[in-house]
């Protein structure tokens, strides 16, 4: 079973664009933080949930503050194996406050949530909505929520492997929109997002979604073009593995969104 983001990127890559056998996310990385505009992050999260449920056949728990009324039509077109049966594998929960989210995540270990099978993917949309945002957020709350999410994923991994030793670990993907505008290439910014600093302690991978502001999208007849950058978190990066022996990781992708809403990933 492949990693969720690997599965999403590969599933929605043009068949003519399959080059080397690159992994998207190292197999050891179980948690990823999506950084970018809220709407695109939500689309990628939904794509991840739907891919996991329909293509990989695993259970997903999706936490969000605002209700998802229906899946975007484009998503239904993108995932041919999408069916009511596979959608039942996704449990949507809508905690309104940080306290409610903490309570719901903390209770993931209870039997009603691990039967018949535990979830293999935990998704949290818009962490900034729960944490109060870059400037007013509390670092300790951000650490508590992140640690609880990671610890819950670790526990669910344990349960999954007890029931089936060949099971993939439980993955965690969350989205966060920083109010600090920093340049990706240089990483220099006059202000620091202290909440993001805390999140980086717990999430192993960072997936930054950056909208293309040039004429490239229009020239290609696209509605939107996004650059997708993958990087390991600076604090939790595995220092014990020799960088020369790590599998190649495709670090830069593009997300192409057509006028009809269909999405495609492409290696940059």
């Amino acid at each position, binding site marked *: 079973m492949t990693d969720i983001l690997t599965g999403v990127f590969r599933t929605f890559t043009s068949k003519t664009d399959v080059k080397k056998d690159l992994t998207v996310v190292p197999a050891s990385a179980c948690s990823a933080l999506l950084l970018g505009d809220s709407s695109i992050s939500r689309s990628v999260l939904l794509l991840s949930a739907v891919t996991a449920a329909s293509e990989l056949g695993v259970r997903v728990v999706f936490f969000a503050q605002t209700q998802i009324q229906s899946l975007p039509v484009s998503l239904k077109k993108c995932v041919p194996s999408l069916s009511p049966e596979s959608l039942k594998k996704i449990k949507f929960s809508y905690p309104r406050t940080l*306290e409610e989210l*903490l*309570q719901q*995540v*903390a*209770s993931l*270990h*209870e*039997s009603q949530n*691990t039967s018949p099978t535990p979830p293999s993917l935990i998704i949290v949309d818009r962490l900034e909505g729960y944490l109060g945002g870059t400037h007013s957020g509390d*670092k*300790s709350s951000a*650490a*508590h929520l*992140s*640690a*609880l999410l*990671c*610890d819950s994923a*670790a*526990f669910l991994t*344990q*349960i999954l492997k007890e029931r089936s030793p060949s099971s993939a670990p439980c993955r965690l993907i969350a989205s966060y929109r920083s109010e600090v505008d920093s340049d990706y290439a240089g990483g220099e910014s006059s202000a620091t997002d202290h909440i993001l600093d*805390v999140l980086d*302690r*717990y999430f192993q991978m960072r997936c930054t979604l950056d909208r293309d502001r040039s004429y490239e999208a229009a020239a290609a007849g696209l509605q939107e073009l996004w650059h997708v950058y993958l990087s390991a978190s600076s604090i*939790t990066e*595995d220092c*014990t593995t020799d960088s020369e022996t790590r599998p190649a990781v495709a670090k830069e992708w593009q997300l192409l969104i057509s006028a009809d809403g269909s999405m495609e990933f492409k290696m940059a």
Partner: protein
Amino acid sequence: MLIMRSLLPAVAEQLFRDIQKAYQETSQIPDDLLIALKFVFGPCALQALNLVDQHSVTCLSSSSGRKAFQVIGGSGRLYTCFVSCHYCPCPAFAYTVLRRNEGPLCKHILAVYLCQAMAVTQEESVSDQQMSAVLSGTALP
């Protein structure tokens, strides 16, 4: 074995292994390891050892198999720490670790590591619902 050991530098991991071995053999921590502990973790090493002496660390287990650590702080307050990553609700963790990035852990988390290495952690069973309350921080201290 604590999963969160992979979050520590190799020197700290080796130190806990050495403490575990020495304590198993002699029921005490030799001076050279105490000095090493202080060197690696600074002032919170002694504070953590005091917490260990006071039997302050309990491993909570629920019927689902979920576990968490609870540490009684110097003030008598209960702090909940996770088994797989570093977090403590104490002011020192918020200030020294999160805000000033001056160390990977506080005395409560260090006390957990030490108690595990020395096998002196208390054990307590709780219900699944109590565990959820403890993990979310909604339980009364």
